[in-house]
């Protein structure tokens, strides 16, 4: 068989394998997601497990301590968040049903109608309408929460399986890696090892940088909201909003805006019916009813600090992709897998970049292998 027909056969084989993989992918998609998450969690926890293992000389016990501690912290966070948000919604629903709230809302509506130009006054709904809509949306929220709870069944299964995979991977990480290396042919051993190491480093640096950046965003958001409270913003659940903003920040470009939403909602819940909050002006010049513009401004400042100071230092050039490519990759990830796809898009692109770089290296130096 000559060289060109061998190449055609190889190409056909590759297309065939690709086609089969694409056909069977939906059946294994959930397992694949579990494995990807497990691998990411392993990469996140590996340094802590390694350093604890150095101190207590037991890998299994180190894994139990780190994973156990994380689970306890996560459950505590979810529990206290649910309790606080429940109390907040209850308080808001009581507030809506009060007569004086309806009166103040009517006054607010009238006042807005006198201030605003005619073409805008038609857009302001009547106070009864607002109350009705608020009550409707509140009951809608509860219904959504119930349907969300029913969907949590499968989510819990995925979470438990991911947890089990993560624990196994953490305990056996280096043995797994050695087993993986066994499958590399002698010819590609050194290149393969370098590829594995570079991919590992790429993902690990990116994830650690992103987590630290998310932590910084959370802290800065908490400080920002605390400062806003000093100016009478009447914000509650500050710590939770900050943590949510930090987590949302993990999704590049879109996350920061997602982080603002709970803060604006809480500001509306707490300040609706207050004349002072409605008449508030940002810097005493720009009208900022219910401190909404203040919150947006605060989050923009936090984002600017994060984008220009924290992320370049912590994440640095870890992925080294052009911003234009990052945007395209995010769009592709978002279209294929939604927010999850956006979360994975950038590190996945980084891994593909490393693989392409190594393929380029292999094709250039094939005579040396």
């Amino acid at each position, binding site marked *: 068989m000559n060289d060109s027909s061998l190449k055609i056969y190889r190409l056909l084989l590759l297309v065939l394998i690709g086609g089969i993989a694409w056909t069977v992918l939906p059946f294994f998609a959930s397992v694949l997601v579990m494995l990807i998450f497990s691998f990411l969690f392993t990469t996140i926890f590996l340094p802590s497990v390694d350093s604890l*293992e150095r101190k207590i000389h037991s890998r299994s016990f180190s894994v139990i301590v780190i994973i156990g501690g994380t689970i306890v912290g996560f459950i505590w966070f979810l529990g206290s968040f649910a309790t606080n948000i429940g109390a907040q919604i209850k308080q808001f629903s009581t507030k809506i049903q009060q007569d004086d709230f309806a009166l103040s809302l009517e006054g607010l509506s009238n006042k807005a109608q006198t201030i605003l130009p005619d073409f805008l006054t038609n857009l302001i709904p009547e106070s009864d309408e607002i109350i009705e809509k608020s009550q409707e949306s509140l009951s809608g929220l509860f219904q959504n929460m119930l349907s969300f709870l029913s969907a949590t069944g499968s989510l819990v299964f995925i979470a438990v399986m991911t947890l089990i995979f993560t624990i196994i991977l953490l305990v056996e990480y280096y043995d797994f890696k*050695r087993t993986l290396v066994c499958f590399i042919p*002698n010819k590609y051993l050194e290149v393969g*090892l370098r590829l594995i190491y570079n991919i590992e480093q790429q993902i690990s640096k990116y994830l650690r940088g992103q987590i630290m950046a998310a932590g910084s965003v959370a802290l800065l958001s908490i400080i920002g909201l605390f400062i806003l409270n000093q100016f009478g913003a009447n914000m509650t659940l500050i710590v939770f909003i900050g943590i949510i903003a930090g987590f949302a920040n993990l999704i590049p470009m879109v996350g920061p805006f997602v982080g603002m939403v709970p803060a604006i909602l809480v500001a509306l819940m707490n300040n609706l019916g207050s004349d002072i909050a409605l008449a508030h002006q940002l810097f005493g010049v720009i009208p900022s009813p219910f401190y909404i513009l203040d919150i947006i401004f605060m989050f923009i400042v936090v984002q600017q600090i994060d984008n220009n100071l924290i992320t370049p230092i912590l994440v640095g050039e870890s992925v080294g992709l052009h911003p234009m490519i990052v945007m395209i990759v995010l769009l592709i990830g978002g279209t294929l897998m939604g927010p999850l796809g956006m979360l994975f898009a950038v590190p996945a692109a980084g891994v593909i970049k490393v693989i392409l770089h190594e393929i380029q290296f292999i094709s250039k130096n094939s005579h040396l292998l």
Partner: protein
Amino acid sequence: MKAIWENIFRKGPADDPILHAIHQVPIFEHLNGKELNEIARLTHERNYKLGEPIFKKMAPGEGMYVIIQGSVTIKDPETDMVFAQLSSGDFFGELALLDEEPRSASAEALEPSKLIGFFRTDLLTLMHRSPELGNKILINLSRVLGERLRQTNKALAEQSS
């Protein structure tokens, strides 16, 4: 009494050919059993056929090899000049643990051979996981390279005189 309390099932350097081979290498000198086990967990066991290249001259070096069984020739492929013929217990390529410079010679199996590879990525992992052990290996590696430099200087001096 000793047989009751001691873990008699734990493999020592004498029982395990990999541990035994690592134990003989000066880079892993002065390491206790536990440390040797940790190194062994990071190494990669490979089998090479007769005449199979282990690495080629000018290829970027990634690490060192220890011969467990068989023999290996180190040569210049352009001139066919043989620099060394190594056998069981010998090691080569240790310079690549420190830099990414291209290999200065080719290595080829002279017979079906079993080798273990210890690579720069393994050393970096070890330095991160266990800095104390990583430092011990680096000091040993410096000693080996220093000794090689001394021998080269001696050979050059003999040649010139």
